């Protein structure tokens, strides 16, 4: 009994000595709340609740301290909102928790916690281990909010200006503030969010703000804020010279490319249109895609959708200098006029002449002309519109009497609302309709005998002459390269001169025929350096409107641990598409690049930014190419290829740091797509005559003819390829069909001429004649009217003077013209045969023109663009290929 009692006592003592309990005030609680960790290095949060308290620990030692309520984070969902397997809690350091009262604690999350993006449960425990009831969640963003660019970064306080603030990871923005960096004054801005990821903020900076520098603060709905320090400068200094904006009008329902001239432009100004009579809440409209061409010239695009009316033009330099051009631009409610044709487009200078002007959208038009004489003198004349016109056609009398032969007149048709169209051009001749003197143009990069020469247009205003292939003086030295030169509205070749096309022929080709339909160039036959070929190829003059469009840009901070992203400066980006290998127009070829995206990163950006470009997809693309300025602050046009991404990607994250880029530049305006193969001719033909004519019945069909030529011996046969133009402008072709009866005599080194009402007013509208000129072995000239379906039935007309072969030929102003190529060698002579005004297609007779080429030529190429004739290359005296070009006016 005593032993049992002793054991019980010992057990009680042991139990007592081992007992230990820690108790708090009961179960604390937290109020339900959703927090967002914005990704900053540190961010503080507030939690409300009850019964939250620190506890004294080590209180009887010489180092007493407090144990705060423990805050731990338990990840429950990933960044995409999917539940995640249980993970260890991440508990904050005690010093990162602050106690305010039993109803409030604060904690600070730091990047050192290494939190993965996603949703976390915030677990709060009092020091006694009691978990607080209630739910607090913490959303950890993969990247914190960021604002990196305000466009423009300088605004004029005389107008209300809409600015675009570019950011990343902004979420739903609920406030945009301007903060005066000097006074701290805060100005809330009206704003909207835009962009595919809602990362662009369009905010309105009201007029009248104090001059100074402002920070921009963007606060998101989740409480995250991002600052762009000194991101906006407000100025009131007007001192910049702005001279013109051309055109000075735009249609409300369409974008209008414009050119702004002035002086002292810096890279890159911003331009605005502000109503001439603004209301207090009027916001100036930004001209888009402003590119810095020089300190005197800017280009840009007036967006569609502006209210019709008169606008002032405001240009703001990056240094804050402002230029103002009052009453500079008119937005019209109706579409502007378009002139498709003026006939005749060659006028004799023996008195006033009446012309028919055809086009669209004519509304009470007036006509004027700017005429440039061969000596460069310009004269402005006013025409008289005759009664009886319609919205698509009217007649006008032009006062061309007395103008110097060779003058070129650009005709302006102006509607009553001020919108106009400049038609290029009509040529002024003498009553004998003689050609004007030739002027010499820029030199080709490569001298070429027997090039194929054609004119093409990228847009109605962007016109080019192409010199394709040719040889170095012998067919064995055939060339595959292609050169191009731009032509202005007065027919003058660009002073920049010829540039080599990035896309060459797949194989060398000389003595090939060429024809243009729409924006497609057809290259027919020729010699590939080994002999006559039956190969036919086609290339498209690329359309800038078919280029991709960059619609958004996102960003994140560059990781300093790796060298990535770009820093302060002006950067240009472009994107082009690479079409699929089965594309019907440009298989495997590249499009023109997008309009440049300009990004101007301020010096206040710490470190680097990694931008992500986002563009609209292009139907039929297999990849996209991204171009960027190699380093900051280079002028537009310096971009080089940075990367290529395969479809279906429509975005690209640019992690590449500034520095050398080895890629090529994007395709320039005027570039062609690839020279795709078409069905071969039935017979190989070199130095054949090639012409194209529209079907007289089927408006969507054209017929491409290859006539005569040489395949070992001269040929009298001809072939036809029918081209069908789809509604979208693309071309479909069948196969070459052998022609019917041959031309009257076999011959090569001839030209074929297609003559319709556009080339000769005496030819009835809807009728097209094809002429086969003389050549080697025969000076016969055969003609046939294009029948429905494209058939030709030849008949002979007046023969050319003997010995003409290897000449350049074209039709215009009612004549057939031939240049050079006589007696089997170079010649500077020019001849013409007038199409009988009373009995077309007869030729009245062939006469030598009074003018001569500046250089004797054999196997030259020629092209006609509007009223201008270009003769290019060929073999000159001694047989050497020529690198020269000449120009004259019809």
């Amino acid at each position: 009994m005593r032993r049992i009692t002793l054991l019980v006592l010992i057990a009680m003592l042991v139990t007592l000595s081992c007992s230990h309990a820690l108790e708090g005030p009961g179960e604390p609680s937290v109020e339900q709340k959703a927090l967002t960790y914005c990704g900053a290095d540190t961010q503080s949060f507030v939690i409300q609740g009850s019964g939250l308290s620190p506890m004294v620990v080590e209180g009887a030692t010489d180092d007493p301290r407090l144990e705060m309520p423990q805050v731990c984070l338990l990840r429950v969902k990933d960044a995409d909102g999917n539940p995640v397997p249980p993970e260890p809690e991440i508990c904050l350091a005690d010093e990162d928790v602050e106690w305010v009262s039993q109803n409030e604690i604060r904690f600070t999350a730091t990047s050192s916690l290494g939190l993965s993006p996603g949703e976390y449960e915030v677990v709060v425990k009092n020091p006694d281990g009691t978990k607080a009831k209630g739910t607090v969640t913490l959303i950890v963003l993969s990247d914190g909010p960021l604002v990196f660019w305000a466009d423009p970064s300088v605004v004029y306080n005389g107008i209300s200006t809409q600015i675009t603030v570019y950011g990343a990871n902004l979420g739903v923005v609920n406030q945009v503030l301007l903060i005066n960096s000097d006074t701290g004054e805060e100005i809330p801005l009206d704003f909207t969010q835009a962009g595919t990821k809602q990362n662009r903020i369009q905010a309105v900076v009201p007029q009248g703000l104090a001059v100074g520098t402002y920070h921009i603060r963007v606060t998101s709905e989740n409480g995250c804020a991002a600052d762009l320090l000194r991101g906006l400068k407000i100025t009131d200094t007007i001192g910049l010279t702005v001279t013109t904006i051309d055109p000075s009008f735009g249609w409300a329902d369409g974008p209008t490319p414009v050119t702004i001239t002035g002086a002292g432009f810096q890279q890159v100004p911003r331009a605005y249109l502000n109503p001439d009579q603004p209301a207090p809440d009027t916001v100036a409209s930004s001209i888009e895609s402003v590119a810095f061409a020089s300190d005197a010239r800017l280009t840009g695009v007036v967006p569609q959708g502006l209210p019709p009316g008169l606008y002032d033009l405001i240009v703001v330099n990056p240094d804050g200098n402002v230029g103002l051009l009052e009453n500079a631009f008119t937005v019209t409610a109706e579409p502007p006029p378009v002139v498709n044709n003026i006939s005749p487009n060659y006028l004799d200078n023996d008195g006033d002449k009446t012309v028919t002007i055809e086009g669209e959208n004519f509304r009470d038009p007036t006509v004027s002309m700017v005429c440039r004489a061969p000596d460069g003198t310009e004269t402005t004349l006013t025409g008289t519109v005759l009664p009886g016109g319609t919205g698509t056609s009217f007649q006008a009398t032009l006062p061309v009497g007395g103008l110097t032969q060779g003058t070129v007149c650009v005709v302006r048709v102006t509607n009553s609302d001020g919108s106009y169209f400049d038609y290029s051009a009509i040529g002024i001749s003498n009553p004998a309709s003689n050609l004007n003197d030739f002027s010499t143009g820029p030199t080709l990069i490569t001298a070429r005998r027997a090039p194929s020469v054609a004119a093409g247009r990228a847009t109605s205003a962007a016109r080019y002459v192409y010199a394709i292939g040719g040889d170095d003086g012998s067919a064995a030295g055939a060339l595959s390269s292609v050169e191009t030169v731009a032509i202005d509205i007065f027919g003058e070749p660009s002073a920049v001169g010829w540039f080599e096309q990035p896309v060459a022929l797949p194989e060398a080709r000389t003595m090939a025929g060429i024809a243009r339909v729409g924006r497609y160039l057809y290259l027919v036959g020729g010699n590939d350096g080994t002999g006559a070929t039956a190969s036919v190829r086609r290339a498209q003059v690329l359309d800038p409107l078919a280029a991709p469009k960059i619609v958004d840009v996102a960003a994140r901070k560059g990781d300093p641990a790796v060298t990535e992203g770009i820093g302060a400066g002006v950067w240009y980006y472009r994107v082009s598409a690479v079409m699929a290998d089965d594309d019907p127009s440009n298989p495997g070829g590249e499009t023109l690049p997008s309009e440049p995206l300009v990004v101007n990163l301020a010096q206040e950006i710490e470190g680097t930014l990694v931008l992500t470009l986002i563009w609209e997809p292009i139907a039929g693309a297999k990849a996209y190419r991204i171009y960027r300025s190699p380093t900051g602050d280079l002028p537009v046009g310096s971009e080089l290829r940075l990367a290529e991404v395969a479809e279906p990607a429509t975005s690209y994250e640019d992690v590449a740091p500034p520095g050398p880029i080895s890629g090529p530049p994007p395709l320039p305006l005027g570039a062609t797509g690839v020279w795709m193969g078409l069905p071969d001719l039935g017979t190989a033909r070199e130095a054949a005559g090639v012409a194209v004519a529209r079907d007289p019945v089927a408006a969507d069909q054209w017929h491409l003819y290859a006539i005569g030529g040489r395949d070992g011996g001269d040929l009298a046969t001809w072939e036809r390829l029918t081209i069908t133009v789809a509604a979208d402008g693309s071309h479909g072709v069948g196969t070459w069909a052998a022609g019917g009866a041959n031309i009257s005599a076999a011959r090569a080194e001839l030209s074929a001429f297609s003559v319709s009402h556009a080339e000769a007013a005496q030819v009835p509208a809807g009728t097209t004649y094809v002429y086969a000129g003389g050549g080697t072995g025969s000076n016969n000239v055969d003609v046939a009217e294009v029948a429905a379906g494209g058939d030709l039935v030849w008949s002979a007309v007046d023969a050319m003077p003997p010995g003409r072969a290897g000449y350049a030929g074209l039709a215009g102003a009612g004549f057939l013209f031939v240049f050079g190529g006589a007696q089997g060698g170079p010649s500077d002579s020019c001849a013409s045969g007038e199409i009988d005004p009373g009995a077309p297609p007869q030729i009245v007779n062939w006469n030598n023109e009074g003018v001569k080429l500046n250089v004797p030529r054999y196997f030259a190429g020629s092209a006609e663009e509007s009223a201008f004739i270009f003769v290019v290359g060929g073999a000159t005296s001694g047989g050497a290929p020529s690198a020269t070009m000449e120009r004259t006016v019809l």
Partner: protein
Amino acid sequence: MKRAAFAGTLWLSLSLGPGALAQESAQASATFDTANPPEATADGDSDALPGALVIGGEVGAIFPQPFSELGTHVAFGIELGYRLPFAGQRIEIMGAAAFSPPGNSTTIERAEGEYEAEIDQQMLFFSLGPRFRVMERASPWNVTIAAGGRLFLLRTYSNGSRGGEEFAEFTEQSTQIGFFVALGGEYVLGPGAIFLDVDLGWSKLPHEITGDVSTGNITPTLGYRFFLL
């Protein structure tokens, strides 16, 4: 509330226990004349000598400073003993209970500001062990030496404030086994003796609130013992 209950229970035991016992002993013991002490018998016993049952109460101050950062506080207790009937009743088996709530207040600085921190350490301890009296039983003066085991019932309170906002109170309690030694002197006066003891007690105090320290303390107390029966 718990702290109040704990203290109330102790006070009840102190206030009721000695009084009741003293009343009972007054009826059963003879008056002790310190001027004419009775003569002892051969076995050391005498009807006029102090009784063998010892009941006492004491009050004093606890000094934990040699062992921890706890501060001085009042201490009070009661004791119950029995002088064994041999060795001239110089050896007494005694049990005691005492209570003291020393504490510590301090200012704790953190990055976000200052906090006022306060802890209270309530100690209720029960002691059991022999007490030896150096002089014979009939001597009016005596010196006592005691030692033994001690059971500590410990409760620690954490409180504090910041900017006028009070912490919630946390309590931590445990029971620890320790020891004590005591040296004292007593002088016969009336039915008992007044005494002055200096007590050294110790046990572990492994509380989070206090830190891993000890209950070690030196407690001088002044009290009165009844010798009954």
